[in-house]
């Protein structure tokens, strides 16, 4: 009798477990469908969780970052001689550049004074600490510990000291997610200098994003500079992105300036395009003299 009851209980608990499992599976599938259809609720859920977890992640990231920094330092300690030599050579080269830069600056100031130039509004920025990354191969993004309270908006450009890193996609109050340029879904309008040839920089999961829709009358050569174009009014123009490399024939890629491997801090730019042309211009006519009163 007792044994029977035990069996019954077991059967019941198994049924409960099955039901829970089924519910969990259905909930996961619903979440997946919502996520794929870019439901704003999912985005809010994600931003909320990021807000909540920011302190914990920062705290956990500290010792781990310290350890990985230690490993990196040890590596660089091992080849310190070679590095030293390279640095000396760099310093020499930079001395020459500094002279050039100073001359150019003077010249620039003089020309501006002559020109009565209207400079675009200053872009301000807020610097954040990278507190988490997407460790997996599915998305390439990073979580930064500044959010809408600090003036970050969806679409803000993220840069490090050297160049563009990515774009803010998803903002919480205290945290925001930066989609890196190498992610599959990253598309950024750029220009190739010199000549301002327009293109779209498209991430494809590799370390060097591809240049698509190249609008080039003349061929783009390896080594040419790539900057943001500011088309679309999302990014400020003229942020350095990288240099063109040629992987294969007709496969232009960009070697990024920004250093993802050592990314600790990023600047999120608070940029608002100063003018937007909202409507087509009117026909400009010569002023008609008012002569009706005299006649």
């Amino acid at each position: 009798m007792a044994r029977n009851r035990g069996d019954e209980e077991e059967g019941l608990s198994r049924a409960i477990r099955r039901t829970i499992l089924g519910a969990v599976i259905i909930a996961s599938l619903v979440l997946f469908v919502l996520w794929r259809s870019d439901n704003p609720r999912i985005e809010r859920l994600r931003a909320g969780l990021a807000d909540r977890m920011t302190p914990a992640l920062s705290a956990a990231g500290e010792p781990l970052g310290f350890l990985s920094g230690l490993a990196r330092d040890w590596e660089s300690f091992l080849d310190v001689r070679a590095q030293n030599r390279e640095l000396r050579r760099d310093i020499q080269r930079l001395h020459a550049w500094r002279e050039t830069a100073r001359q150019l600056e003077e010249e620039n100031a003089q020309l501006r004074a002559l020109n009565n130039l209207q400079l675009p509004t200053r872009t301000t920025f807020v610097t954040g600490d990278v507190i988490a990354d997407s460790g997996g191969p599915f998305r390439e993004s990073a979580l930064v510990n500044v959010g809408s309270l600090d003036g970050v908006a969806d679409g803000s450009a993220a840069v490090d000291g050297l160049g563009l890193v990515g774009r803010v996609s998803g903002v919480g109050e205290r945290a925001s997610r930066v989609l890196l340029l190498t992610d599959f879904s990253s598309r950024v309008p750029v220009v190739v200098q010199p000549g301002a040839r327009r293109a779209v920089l498209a991430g494809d999961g590799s370390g060097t994003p591809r240049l698509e829709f190249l609008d080039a009358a003349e061929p783009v050569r390896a080594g040419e500079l790539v900057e943001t174009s500011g088309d679309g009014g999302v990014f400020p123009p003229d942020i350095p992105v990288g240099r063109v490399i040629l992987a294969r024939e007709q496969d232009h890629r960009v070697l990024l300036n920004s250093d993802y491997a050592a990314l600790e801090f990023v600047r999120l730019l608070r940029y608002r395009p100063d003018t937007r042309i909202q409507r087509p211009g009117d026909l400009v006519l010569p002023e008609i003299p008012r002569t009706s009163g005299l006649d």
Partner: protein
Amino acid sequence: MVDAARPSRPERGLWLRILGLAVAGLLAITVEAAPLGLGAEAYPSPDLLFCIVAFWALRAPAAVPVLVVFALGLMRDLLTDQPIGLGVLVLVLAAEMLKSRQPVLSRQPLAVTWASVGATALAMAAALWLGVALSLAEPPGLAALALQVLATAAVYPVIALILPLALGRVRRPLGA
């Protein structure tokens, strides 16, 4: 070990183990999310959460409730930008699969459990890739995915050897 005067002992042990799973899982998520190298060139971090869940499922399957695994997996999906919903689904199914095989697997030497955990990780990666591809999103590169599976497989025995030491050698499998 079982104290006759306090019949609630095994029950309490079970709750402690569930709590242990939750804490270890949270720790695994924060470690996975820690920014140690970004971008496509970086080494993919191993699926630590799966290693923890697999270890628990093979050690104390009664202490791996579906809802806890679901909560952990969902949290990981949301924080680390995995395919939301799909990642957690695959994790839950893998945990259930390992739990159902536990009576057989727990008697095998570490090499055999290692191989089956590695095979499970591979199956999970394949399912994720397929799910993403079927939903018409851009699936990740197979090389990166394979690297992640290798990393996961490499980390599992370390976790399986370290955790029992850290937990003070809880030898007897619970609820087997």
